[in-house]
């Protein structure tokens, strides 16, 4: 047997190498963004005002009541953005939308001295919206021809012929969620 299979002196493969931050992880001493924020007395909390429409145009945002909530410092809106009202990816979703595109989308953000003040402030913001039509289910999307991305086709052989000559044909419709399809499809 060759000596190549023998473990050399000072081998690295097979030694236990804990994660570089393992000791901090397991002792709760690793610091994440919110951990740093809560330990600073000067850090404000931003709480989103969230859309209650799936699709709508925001026509007005009334902040007076929110600003009167104790501990609320400010309400961030599109007018505060010095550059492009973008949320990271250029030309994609605005940070402060005028056209809301999903239930729960953040419309503006209330800044408060602590989470409770920010939360109560956000609850006090009034948003005027004109609802727009929305497609809520896959059948609705298919009916409206509203597809996203490439329309993929997988084709092999002659499916019609195979079905016509099959001994048994079962048909029906089943609906399943996107992440479950790997094990649910029979």
């Amino acid at each position, binding site marked *: 047997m060759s000596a190549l299979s023998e473990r050399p002196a000072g081998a690295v493969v097979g030694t236990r190498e804990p994660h570089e931050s*393992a000791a*901090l*992880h*397991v002792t*709760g*001493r690793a610091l*994440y963004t919110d951990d740093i924020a*809560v*330990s600073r007395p000067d850090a404000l909390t931003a709480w989103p005002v969230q859309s209650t429409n799936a699709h709508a145009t925001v026509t007005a945002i009334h902040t007076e009541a929110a600003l009167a909530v104790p501990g609320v410092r400010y309400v961030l809106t599109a007018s505060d953005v010095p550059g492009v009202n973008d949320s990271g990816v250029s030309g994609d979703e605005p940070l402060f939308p005028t056209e809301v595109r999903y239930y729960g989308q953040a419309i503006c953000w209330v800044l408060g001295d602590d989470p409770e003040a920010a939360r109560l402030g956000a609850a006090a913001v009034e948003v005027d919206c004109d609802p727009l039509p929305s497609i809520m289910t896959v059948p609705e999307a298919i009916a409206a021809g509203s597809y996203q991305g490439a329309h993929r086709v997988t084709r092999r052989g002659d499916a019609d012929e195979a079905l016509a000559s099959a001994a048994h044909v079962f048909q029906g419709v089943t609906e399943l969620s996107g992440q479950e399809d790997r094990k649910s499809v029979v």
Partner: protein
Amino acid sequence: MENLHLTVNGEERSAETRAVHTTALNWLRNNGLTGCKEGCAEGECGACAIMVAAPDGDGGTTWTSMNACLIPVAALDGQEIVTAEGVGTPENLHPVQEEMAVCGGSQCGYCTPGFVCSMAAEYYRPGRTASAPETNTEPAAETGPNGFELESLSGNLCRCTGYRPIRDAAYALGAPDDADDLARRRSKPAPEPRTTDIERSDGRFVRPGTLADALAVLAENPGALPVAGCTDWGVEVNIRGRREPLVVAIDRLPELRGIEATDTHVDIGAAVPMSDIEQWADGRVPLLSQLLPQFASRLIRNRATLGGNLGTGSPIGDTPPALLALGASVVLASPDGERVVPLDEYFTGYRQSVRAEGELIRAVRIPLPTARMTAFHKIAKRRFDDISSVAVGFALDLDGGNVTAARIGLGGVAATPIRALDAERALIGKPWNADTVRDAAAALGSAGTPMSDHRASSEYRSIMLSQSLLKLFAESEATIGAH
């Protein structure tokens, strides 16, 4: 302004809080202990797990893992808690932390402190004993060769590691040695509850010392909210922003914490944590032994109570179907005395019951002996830690091959938990065979008025009811044999 007092990681602290609704999670994080994380704020992810010194029923202490996001910090007044920071330090890792580190049990590390606390609580469980080397050799064994029950981690989620390295760490643990402070702490009593009474701008939190005191506070303050484990109330506070002007903590009332069994019945105190009931029920009430491991997670069961589950009275609460099958009654206490209400008569509408303003559930009374054929079927989208689509509790007695008694409790098919009376009638007095079961299953499938929602369609719910009985029959064929 009176403060709370907590012992945190061995250090006594005067705990200031600006709000009575502040959770233990937020208090810890605002006071320099950021190991405790918020992953969900509703008791599902376990990133907030901490260890609390709880009475072991024998004059000692058991380190009990709990979700800090669901415990009001005021509820921990006078109590002792340990966080991941207290389990060990980078210079002096605890065995649990050491194993998690060397086994690769963390990647992003966010869930890790919570896992450390849940794992440490199981590490210190007095009943944990190593099993013989020949057992637990299956790769998917749920108890390790060191006696570690994987169930103890059922309330902790990890998105990164795929759990295998965490399990490996858990199963590699030895036993605590004699010098271990946390182990030695177990031989001394847990802290007594304090009669906390604090008021802040968002309300008042009171912990009366006796049942009579609690009833008096409720009588003086109509609309006050009694809370026990807070595993439901905590979700209301965190997710729905609910605030109540007066919260009355009843989880440590001695009158609500006993389990007293006679020949004819057992009274389970309304504030006994579900995990304690689970231990008691083992070998005594098989239906509860089937229900309780499926109830949320161990972290939740270490706080949740029967009184809370019945007090909330959700139609999808999991204890009522089993308790209805067991023929349970609710013992209600008021300043005028006690009354006993059969559970079938307890619920009057969606989250409504006969419990009057100022009354407290003192105990749940289960007649003994229980039926010989019992089962609890929980149908949910996830195997663990999920809200049921439907839940079914069965309790049947057979004699000479005939069904002599049948009680079937259902959850998730009406505005309240209900009995499946038609299906019961289709079984009683009939032979326990495929024909009877088929007819009864059809009746069971028509029970209630299930609705369609994001969990399940009404058709699916009804089909699952029928299937439940067919499954019970199939399983009984395998076990009853000579009957």
